[in-house]
């Protein structure tokens, strides 16, 4: 099975980040992991990457509930980033919310590939690999 070059996690919960990183390492999911604690930080960071002429991470795991800029707002701004490989980026919403309104809303965003319910499992990441890599 192929390996993903670069992955991005946008979440404000340190425990989740720790857990996800740990699973990724265990199954050798990717080479590089970028972490942002809220939507604003993520936009700023991704803009930096673009400015340096580098490629965007091919998979983004995005939390919905975050301070300053939440996941929905991030999506609004993200699609405006002028990077040549932005369209090849796959976004996964990863949330603890079982609120059906959230699940429904995800369908409005073309850039979002799927909705993964926390806690994330090795099987979830296997599926992502199968889809993306």
């Amino acid at each position, binding site marked *: 099975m192929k390996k993903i070059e670069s992955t991005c996690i946008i979440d404000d919960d340190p*425990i989740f980040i720790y857990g996800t990183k740990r699973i990724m390492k265990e199954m050798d999911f990717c080479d590089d992991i970028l972490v942002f604690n809220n939507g604003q930080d993520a936009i700023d960071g991704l803009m930096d990457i673009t400015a340096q002429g580098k490629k965007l991470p091919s998979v983004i795991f995005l939390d919905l*509930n975050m301070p*300053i800029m939440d996941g929905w707002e991030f999506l609004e701004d993200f699609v405006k980033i002028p990077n040549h490989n932005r369209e090849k980026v796959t976004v996964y919403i990863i*949330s*603890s*919310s079982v*609120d059906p309104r*959230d699940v429904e809303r995800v369908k409005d965003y073309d850039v979002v590939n799927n909705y993964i319910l926390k806690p994330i499992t090795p099987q979830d990441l296997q599926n992502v690999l199968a889809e993306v890599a």
Partner: protein
Amino acid sequence: METHSFNFLFKESIYPMAIVDHEMRFLNHSKLWLQDLGIKDSNIIGKTFYDVFPNTPEEIKIIHQHCLRHTVKQSKIQTITQSDGSQKWVDWQIKGWKEESKKLSGLLIVAEDITLKKRKEELLLNIQRVAKIGGWEFDFVANKAYLSDITKEIHELPLDYEMDLEKGLEFYKEGEHRDKITRVVNEAVTHHMPWDIETILITAKGNERWVRSIGECEVVDNKCIRIYGTFQDIDQKKRIELHNQEISERLTIATTDAANIGIWEYNIFNRKVTWDDNLYRIYGVTRDKFEETIDAWEAIIHPDDKIHCHNEIELAIVNNKKCTIEFRIIWPNGELRYIRSEFTISRYQNGVPSRLIGATWDITEAKTAEQNLKELLEVTSEQNDSLMNFAHIVSHNLRSHSSNLSMLTGFLTQEEDENEKSSLVKMLNDASISLNETVTHLSEVVHVKTNSEEKMKKTNLLKAIIAVEKNIRALLNEKEAVCNISVDASINIQAVPAYLDSILLNLFTNSIKYSSPKRKPIIDIKAEVKDDVVLFTFADNGLGINLEKHGKKLFGMYKTFHKNKDSKGIGLFITKNQIEAMNGKIEVESTEDVGTSFKLTFKKTIENEHHKKNEKDREHLYYR
């Protein structure tokens, strides 16, 4: 001389009279004889009666012969058709005379013109027939009853029917009607009382018929010897009257008892108003206290609605339209009532408006119900919102902790490295603390929602502000913050003291937490009374917030907008809930990097103010 003078008097007699001899030849006649009988021939002396009246009927000729022979007096009425075709009634009075000494005999004839009398009689009969009025009498001495033809017709009896008193009473409908006529007849006989009653008769053919019976009695030696009177068929009139009465009663029941509708009329010219009893009840005034003028009516209307009412009425008169107005009135006891009135304009034939006629009813209950419904709807939709919010919190925040816990325990069971293990346990501990915190927040929110108004009490706003400010003096001093408090010491609000403290504390700490590093914090606190609420403003010169972006979420749970370690996104959420639990409101205005201003609305404590207000209203009305 004597003969001449007699002759003169005869000529000038006030009667049309003539003297004929035994061969019916005219010997003499009065001037009126020619005039009244329309005789053209001025010289009839010597001519016979039958020459002058060729159409004399045979029976009168027989009377003439009879009177001549027996020297007696007889009379006979004859209708004469005159030359112009009109009818004349003549009452012939014929008397035979004889003068033995001169062997002379003849007749004295007086012809009385009774046309006028006859006409009147006919007219009277006609009137009786048209008005269906008959006459009757009972003679107790002769024990005889007399009924006029019309009376018999009303009874539908044959004209030759023989009536007596007992039979007469039996024609009345059994029960109240027969009892009534029997009672009045007894009263008449024993106490000589006249009567005038309306009862139902059952005719000989079995038809029910309303009649009016008027009776009087003739008393001789304190004894009633005869009762007599008139009898009128009033069936048609009575039935219409009864029908109208029924409709009117139905209307009264509908308006008075069922709908409580008051009826009024306003005379535009003399500015007088007329009210029915119901309207007095609606306006809460008594007849003796109301002047019955349009000004007196306007005095009852709430001062704020007077102009509106006045204009609507003027407009309705100009536009000639049916009009509905709604307004408030103040009862003499100060109570406020909502009123609706519908009216139309009545005009003279030349189009000039004369009167307004209207119906008015009290819609206070409907208005109150509408108000309550609106409030209920608001509360329900608010509660629905909070419920959704709550569901979201449960589904999201609680789950985020539980998912962390399950993930960490999963790692822990597989982990063999002791260092990593202790690190996992520490994380597990953090996660359980977070879970605990979230549960505490949730219970706080639920607590606010379920602790309703009953804990509200009169609270002095300024005292509460100063107490909270004192508590966080250290924090304010550390940031060198300045507080400008401009709140009147007399302002009391209805509040749950613990909530008020929590709200104020949250506003203060927010201002300090999100103060701008570029300047010293300044906090401006103001309060003003408006009607029955207190408007409270809490403004700072801090970081501010982009309301366009975050406005909707500002008071949501777990929403934070600043990169601040202390931000938990729970403070304003609880503040909003606490204010709403006290029937208040919170709004925000903010400009980024300039400052934030929270505007809060509290219910003012009413105390004795209510009493004063009523007194003021009354005064106002009194001086109008």
